[in-house]
């Protein structure tokens, strides 16, 4: 009787493990995405925000972080829409380079006077139909300004993850950029956008176009 009970419970455990296998993997993906965002923010705070390094070195570190943690080609193809999709490979590659530069120098300036803000990672949603996972977080200001809600859209890739969008207080960066670029894409094509963005990159790098440092509560 005892043996039978043992067998039955083992069979039950086996069945149960099969049953919960699917949702467990979805939640594994969500948990993995959460720790990806936490690691990304730790790296940004410790290696970039708090580090006392030259502006050039800070830019190098931002570039490395961008390349490791964000899917730049995917974001670039999203923001350039169908004009980008119909452009030739060389023009796309050139845009990606300039687009990456734009992100690098914008974020290098934003991290310049880092004010000690920390990112508190919240919940993660299971993957949506495109396979992306949304991770909620709050950017908390040490001075007590109201926190800023930030949602990270990350794409699982094998065992790792890459960011595809940052949504700040309901405003998606890639959707806003897609809108911003549409008109020049229609008039001047992808090379026209690349040239215009390059001008912006130079302006930001030389300080002609001012990008204020990261501030919690600034957008409210």
């Amino acid at each position, binding site marked *: 009787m005892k043996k039978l009970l043992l067998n039955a419970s083992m069979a039950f455990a086996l069945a149960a493990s099969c049953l919960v296998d699917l949702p467990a993997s979805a939640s594994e993906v969500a948990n993995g995405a959460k720790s990806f965002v936490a690691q990304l923010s730790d790296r940004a705070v410790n290696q970039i925000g708090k580090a006392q390094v030259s502006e050039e070195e800070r830019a190098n570190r931002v570039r490395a972080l961008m390349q490791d943690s964000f899917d730049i080609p995917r974001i670039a193809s999203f923001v350039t829409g169908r004009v980008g999709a119909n452009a030739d490979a060389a023009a796309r590659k050139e845009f990606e380079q300039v687009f990456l530069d734009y992100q690098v120098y914008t974020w290098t300036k934003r991290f310049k006077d880092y004010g000690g803000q920390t990112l508190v990672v919240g919940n993660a949603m299971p993957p949506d139909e495109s396979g992306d996972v949304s991770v909620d977080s709050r950017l908390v200001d040490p001075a007590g300004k109201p926190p800023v809600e930030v949602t990270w859209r990350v794409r699982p890739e094998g065992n790792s993850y890459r960011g595809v969008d940052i949504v700040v207080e*309901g405003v998606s960066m890639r*959707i806003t950029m897609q809108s*911003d670029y549409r008109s020049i894409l229609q008039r001047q094509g992808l090379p026209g956008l690349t040239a215009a963005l390059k001008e912006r990159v130079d302006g930001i790098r030389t300080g002609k176009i001012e990008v204020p440092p990261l501030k919690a509560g600034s957008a409210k």
Partner: protein
Amino acid sequence: MKSNKTKSFASPSAVSLLALALLAGCAAAPEAGDKEAQAEWKQINDPAEPTNRNLHSFNQGVDDNALKPMAEGYREYVPGNFRTNIRNVLTNLGEPVTAVNDVLQGEFLRAASAVGRFCVNSTFGFLGMGDVAGGGGMEHHTEDFGQTLAVWGVGEGPYMVLPILGPSNPRDATGFVVDRFMDPLSWVFPSMPLVASVSKGTVEAVDKREKYIDPLNEIQRTSLDYYASLRSLYRQKRADDILNGKKGPAMPAPGLAYESKSGQAGN
């Protein structure tokens, strides 16, 4: 780019500029055969774009020459504490409208919070100058009739730029007018002199503009098409406000994805 350059604003021509703006008419819809262009047209949802862009330039002129300098002067010459008091008073005066809209949306707990805040701050907060209720954990939120209409299932309609008031759509513009009439304060003080209501409106505008000096400066400096960026930001922000910051399946996805075709190509 073009919209950034049309900043010259001579006051005598303001009226004629506005008239010209309204005459510009509508953008041409794409041909029926081009499915992608049709989808894009629907998503942008701005059939009166030429008129809207002209109105945007007109508003920019007003902003550059009047509103923004006033807001900057306000920031420079009025002490921060005093500005906070003024913002608190204006916020407090807005609580009744928020409460009414909360009720209309079936959000009774949020309505109670708005009423509670109004009572506490109007008394213990010295006519709303201090946010005593906020300190006690009753967080501030706003609701307007545009959001109420959205909760009731009314669509936003095409994008439109209103003279002086800026980005809007038929639903939110209707909401703006209804909110003015449903303000319980206008029932309590029905004979509020015009001067008082105009000055309240002016102070509100300057306070709001001061709040957005930095983010708007940054968007204007870094964007390639300020008009399109504002249109996108307005829509996304309203969608987020309607859902009260919650994410759900009802959240619209205003972006178009072309990832499958070129996503790998760049790698």
